[in-house]
């Protein structure tokens, strides 16, 4: 089945004023996507915006894929205006996705803002067997909390402005947590997705503490299939493509 297909918008509704939930339906949509994989989604039928935009698979139901997106620039602004019933071209599932942990581990998931979209299906898959540290700049960036609460062993939220949870960055919250109860957390594995500075801080912390793990990287993309070499990140083995060898990389591989 082709990974390039036309899908119908069956829902495109605001979650809050800067985030939307998008549900796409197509008989062609793959049923076998892995947590951490993504789709490239068309945002306009004109040439402005031109390129498709990458979005993580939030949920994968039979014949439908769910996405959670933040309205950021012109592409997502146009997406927000798309109506139910409209058809969009999509390309996916793309990328590698998160490698699953060994049976005996209860991993730590660290989500920064919209990074939750990528970690959500992983949390779901892990079945109440993960700690989720979820931070946003404000309360508005913390989404789907009720659903998440039921999905993880423990949910620790934080915001930069203190409007919900602890007033701190998610990495600092994690740091305190690790300092006080690392042994209690039967975890030697981290999964993180979020803005680049957060991922860098997570990586430093993980390296310092000797914890292994994976981070999902973000880069501007054009093709999504490994052809343009536009989305590379620097790794210890040279430049690697976020859309192909990634978006998920072992923490120790990335050169910051």
């Amino acid at each position: 089945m082709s990974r390039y297909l036309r899908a119908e918008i069956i829902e495109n509704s605001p979650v809050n004023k800067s985030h939307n939930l998008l549900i796409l339906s197509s008989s062609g949509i793959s049923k076998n996507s892995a947590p951490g994989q993504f789709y490239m989604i068309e945002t306009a039928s004109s040439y402005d915006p031109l390129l498709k935009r990458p979005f993580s698979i939030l949920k994968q139901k039979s014949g439908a894929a769910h996405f959670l997106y933040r309205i950021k620039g012109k592409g997502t602004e146009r997406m927000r205006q798309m109506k139910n019933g409209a058809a969009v071209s999509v390309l996916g599932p793309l990328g590698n996705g998160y490698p699953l942990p060994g049976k005996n581990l209860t991993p730590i998931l660290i989500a920064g803002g919209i990074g939750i979209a990528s970690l959500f299906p992983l949390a779901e898959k892990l079945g109440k067997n993960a700690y989720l540290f979820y931070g946003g700049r404000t309360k508005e960036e913390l989404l789907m909390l009720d659903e998440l609460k039921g999905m993880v062993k423990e949910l620790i939220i934080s915001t930069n402005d203190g409007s919900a949870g602890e007033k701190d960055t998610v990495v600092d919250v994690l740091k305190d947590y690790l300092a006080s109860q690392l042994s209690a957390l039967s975890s030697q594995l981290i999964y993180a997705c979020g803005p680049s500075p957060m991922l860098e801080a997570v990586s430093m912390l993980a390296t310092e503490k000797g914890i292994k793990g994976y981070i999902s990287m973000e880069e501007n993309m054009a093709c999504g299939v490994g052809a343009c070499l536009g989305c590379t990140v620097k790794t210890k083995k040279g430049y690697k493509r976020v859309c192909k060898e990634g978006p998920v990389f072992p923490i120790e591989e990335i050169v910051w």
Partner: protein
Amino acid sequence: MDLTVHIGKLKLKNPVMTASGTFGYGEEYSEFVDLNKLGAIVVKGISLKPREGNPSPRICETSCGMLNSIGLQNVGLKEFLKTKLPYVRKYDTKLIVNILGNTLQEYVKLSEALDDAGVDGIELNVSCPNVKKGGIVFGTDKKMLGKLILKVKASIKNSLLITKLSPNVSDIKEFARIAEESGSDAISLINTIPGMAIDVKTRKPKIANIIGGLSGPAIKPIAVRMIYEAYGAVKIPIIGMGGIMNSEDAVEFMLAGATAVAIGTANFVNPMATLAIIRGMESFMKENGITDFKKLTGGLRC
């Protein structure tokens, strides 16, 4: 209905090829496109040694276009011959290899090796705006360009020699003529146009290399004009590219003077763009009672 076109001695099934750097080594798109259906595949620019390329971010979107500064990341000649070439050779389509050297000698070495390996065509990239040495220097200096083409031409036996011209010149006709006079079998144009974008919030350039190459529909009018001008200046065939998104655009390039067209940025928007364009061109011919594609070339009525 005859879709075939000739670029010099090369006979293509149809006039639609891929633009270098936008279709990987063919393999990346083989899931979406039956490579057998393409007029030709032009692969990512190859250099003598592998190249790491430029730091990230390497691309950003602009109005109806995109900037890239990949910096010619590529596997290098040796690895290309070992793994990439055999892959494309499984398909029944012409293979054109885009090359970039730092020096004249490097271009010659690359051409000899590729010619020996039996590639159908060699495309001299003398217009890459994204690497400091070589490339664009040849592309904007008439004497050096002529010398380069002469030397490369002398060093190859069978492959077709295509010179990819830089759009970054005042008079494309002069450069087209130099390519023709120096023995190039065909010319291709246009490469990306140097451009730049700044993020006003961070005050940083949107791509790490500061300047990148602009491609996509934004540059189409410039490309069409240059092809029209070059067509008036030389007799060798022209491979036209620059913002072709659909079959109408492709026909527009042929009317301006192109014998074949190459699809670049459009592959990113639609991985099956090449096939859609071939189909669309067939329909265009049917609807307009055209039986031979060659008749379109230069068919502009002024």
